């Protein structure tokens, strides 16, 4: 593990204003995440874990505190910079897959790369094919994404998250819409990605899913309740092939 953190948050706050007044979703969250970590963020609904993920993934800005990503302070980045960093450095996996169902698996996986102007079409094709192969779904490359099963969809989504060789992959309840077997397979893929050196930040409310990670940050009422390493990770093989 390198010394310099990939992600460093200090006293992160998020205050939402609406008609009824204001909601304090984050009340001062601080932690560091180093390259190569597999972190699960857990908490009950309303705890602020989704808000935290949105800020960490540059989709939202905090109302207080500081967030430094790869040495760059978010305060000093424009919306354009944030889009660029999301494009080059971050991968996203969502609970509801968020695939474009009308287009092929290939085009779905290629989506982040079309916003990378300087990438040659040939190189793009190669990277998309590699990403699809890495989640073992090559035979579906030119099939419309809408025609896949839930588990297959989430694998496509993982390929899309990988295709830009991101510094960090954010997974927001990636197993939430899957049956337990598909869910376990998805977690297995994430685990092997982690073994290859990828940094993964997982948000979940299921203890079972969180136990695939190496570190658990528990959020409660907008604060870090606990931040502990997981001594013994769960593995897919133990579940289904014992």
């Amino acid at each position, binding site marked *: 593990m390198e010394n310099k953190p990939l992600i460093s948050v200090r006293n992160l706050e998020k205050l939402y204003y609406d008609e009824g007044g204001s909601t304090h979703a984050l009340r001062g969250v601080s932690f560091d995440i180093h390259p190569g970590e597999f972190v699960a963020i857990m908490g009950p609904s309303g705890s602020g874990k989704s808000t935290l993920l949105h800020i960490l993934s540059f989709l939202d800005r905090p109302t207080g505190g500081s967030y430094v990503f790869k040495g760059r302070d978010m305060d000093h980045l424009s*919306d354009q910079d944030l889009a660029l960093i999301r494009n080059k450095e971050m991968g*996203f996996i969502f609970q509801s897959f*968020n695939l474009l169902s*009308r*287009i092929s698996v290939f*085009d779905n996986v290629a989506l982040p790369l079309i*916003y*990378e102007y300087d990438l040659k079409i040939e190189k793009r094709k190669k990277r998309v094919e590699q990403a699809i192969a890495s989640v073992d779904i090559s035979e579906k490359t030119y099939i419309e994404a809408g025609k896949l099963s839930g588990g297959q969809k989430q694998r496509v989504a993982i390929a899309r998250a990988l295709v830009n060789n991101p510094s960090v992959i954010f997974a927001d309840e990636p197993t939430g819409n899957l049956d337990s077997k598909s869910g376990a397979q998805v977690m297995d893929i994430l685990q092997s990605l982690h073994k290859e050196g990828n940094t993964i930040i997982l948000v979940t409310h299921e203890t079972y899913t969180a136990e695939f990670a190496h570190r658990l940050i528990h959020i409660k009422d907008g604060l870090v309740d606990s931040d502990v390493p997981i001594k013994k990770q769960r593995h897919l093989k133990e579940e289904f092939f014992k």
Partner: protein
Amino acid sequence: MRLYDSLKTSSNNLTHSKMRTFLTMLGIVIGISSVILLMSIGASAEKLIIGQVQGVGSNLVFVIPGASKGSRFSAPASSQGIIIKTLTGSDVDALQRDPAIVNAAPEVRGQAKAVFGNNDTNITYIGVTENFFATRNFVVEKGQNFNDSDVNSFNRVAVIGPEIAKTLFGDFNPVGKSFRLNDISFKVSGILEQKGVGAFGVDQDNIILVPISIAQKQMLGIDYYNAISVQVSDSYASEYTKSRVFSIMRASHRITDPNKDDFTIRTQEDILSLLGSITSILTIFLTSIACISLVVGGIGIMNIMLVSVIERTREIGLRKAVGATNSDILQQFLWESVLLTFFGGFIGILFGAFLVGVVYLVLVNIIKTDWVFALPAQAIISAVVVSTFTGVLFGLYPARQAAKKNPIDALRYE
């Protein structure tokens, strides 16, 4: 986002829901094809009119009795049915003496009943001299025209148009036959070549030309002329000859103050520009009406694009999450509406050209007019520009709505 990716993304979205795309395009197709059709009809009408005015003869200046007050286009009193007796033989003689003037052909007009056997019809006759034929481009196809000695010796001969020849004589060859015009017997000396409807709305095939002497003295009982057609030499500029004709006429009528002119002079250019401005106004008017359908089509596009933006809220959120900037999203939706209107415009041009062809074929083959085919390049260019511009104009608001979406709200949208 590269242009290639923008176009691919937009065309994917458009081809996915073909019926919706087609119906959305339809407004633009109809708008553009009607613009093309109306601009082409305007251009055809203008060509037709120019052809007819030039068909009257070349280098012509018309002298009409009575002054026209105000603009050069206002009608002289004589054309409003007021009898003005100021154009006479001495004017013709004075004009004829000028070296810049090749011919000065006087004419008188009247209405009469023409009778041959059991056939009769009411018709316009024109009393003319020999040089009228050359001056006004009236070609005798069968037989021959009458000459000045026929005019001077009051010979009752007539040259008739092909239409009236058919009406009166049917299948007979009229040359050499006699018919009655206002109970005066005329012998047909020649038949005119087919000429169609003239620039002044007169059917030039349905007229009878008789010696001016008989028309004046025996049929109308007058000693003045209704008009003089002056043919000027090629070697003089028309503005120069026009002013020459003015000064000759003023000298002949002893007029010193130009405001007291008792005659009006019209050149072919005057007539062309008058008719040209009428057709231009009509074309502009009709094209503006067609533009209303373009606006309606554009609003249709805006409406569908707004629906599309709402339907694809999650897609917008996803694209933003994976790195699309606001301008990437704006471009994507703008391209979609521009592609819609561009192809709508393209189909509209083809459809409009097809309609122009149909109108041409119907007018020429079924209604038998001298309609001229015209599909002006400016109509096509403006159709392309206007349809693309419509796409930008009506696509901009929905595209901005899409670009402005907050990625988190968009991703959560159900």
